[in-house]
């Protein structure tokens, strides 16, 4: 099974390493050639270039990929590249990181699978505060 990861920063590189460890054939695409260092002794593919560039995507194996993760540092780039991968290459599993919760929700409705770390952080933090049960403790103390 082939996967292409666009954006090989902290998130993209970790996703790439985990998938590669689960027997995926992974290729990473990043504008910065130094991003390769994040992958350690990487045996998968690595292409230097922009994810909007058709030649770069195809060199990265977008046409044969079964899954794609888009995690560059730009929400709008991710949204656009995700749609290109869905529509031009008909990749069934395209997952896109979008930091802005409002845009993430909007594109989720349009049929793009978005992951919003900001929304996850908000929910986790709210849940963590609730889990403290401060009210109960305060009541018990009084």
């Amino acid at each position, binding site marked *: 099974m082939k996967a292409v990861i666009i954006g090989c920063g902290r998130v993209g590189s970790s996703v790439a390493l985990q998938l590669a460890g689960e027997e995926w054939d992974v290729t990473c695409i990043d504008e910065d050639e130094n991003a390769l260092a994040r992958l350690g002794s990487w045996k998968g593919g690595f292409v230097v270039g922009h994810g*909007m560039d058709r030649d770069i995507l195809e060199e990265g194996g977008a046409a044969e990929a079964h899954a794609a993760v888009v995690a560059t540092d730009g*929400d*709008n780039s991710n*949204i*656009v590249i995700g749609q*290109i991968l869905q529509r*031009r290459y008909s990749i069934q599993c395209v997952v896109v990181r979008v930091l802005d919760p409002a*845009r993430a929700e909007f594109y989720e409705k349009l049929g793009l699978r978005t992951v919003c770390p900001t929304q996850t952080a908000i929910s986790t933090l709210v849940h963590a505060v609730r889990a403290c049960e401060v009210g109960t403790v305060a009541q018990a103390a009084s």
Partner: protein
Amino acid sequence: MYVVIAGGGKVGANVARSLIAMEHEVTIVEQRRDRVAQLEEEFGHAAMLGDATEIAVLERAGIARPPDLVLAVTGDDEDNLVISQLAREGYGVEKVIARVNDPRNQETFDLLGVSRTVCATSGLLGLVEHEVPEHGLVRLLELRREGLEVVEVQVVADSPAAGQRVSGLSLPEGSRLVSVMRNGTAEIAVGETVIHPGDQVVAILKPGAEDQLRRALVG
């Protein structure tokens, strides 16, 4: 009419000025603080600070009214694509025009359904081609959405079409010759029209048939 302009650079500001002169209501959204200060000097409250790819910013600009027209003319193609999709799919804005900065991204605008686009670079290149006739085929008009284009070809002495009747040419499927221009005068091309060296031939065709048409006319 009410127009929201996303991107307050040279393009956005000049379009805003013209629209205001035509008595239209305009809001210009620009994310660079120093640029907004300049815009405010000329446009006052019509200038607004913010990233037009953020839904909250678009709502402050009145996207929910919705505007009669949204122009996505920032210097970033991804931003223009997202603004166009938010306006059309999110708020039902019927007329959205997007600027294509890098002509290589044109196919992405088409793929994502953002079909009304303007690309200054392509326009300039078209004019350059027009000035260099030996370049082959010149695009005069491109109706992307309708899937039709109008092109011009200069026939020379050794072109396969030179000396031929229009009816005798093997033109590609989905193409027609429209007119033949000779010595500054155009005549409608019919089956009996004979093409001479030096003629400028205008044809209408489906996109994709350019190479075949070029081969049939000028080799």
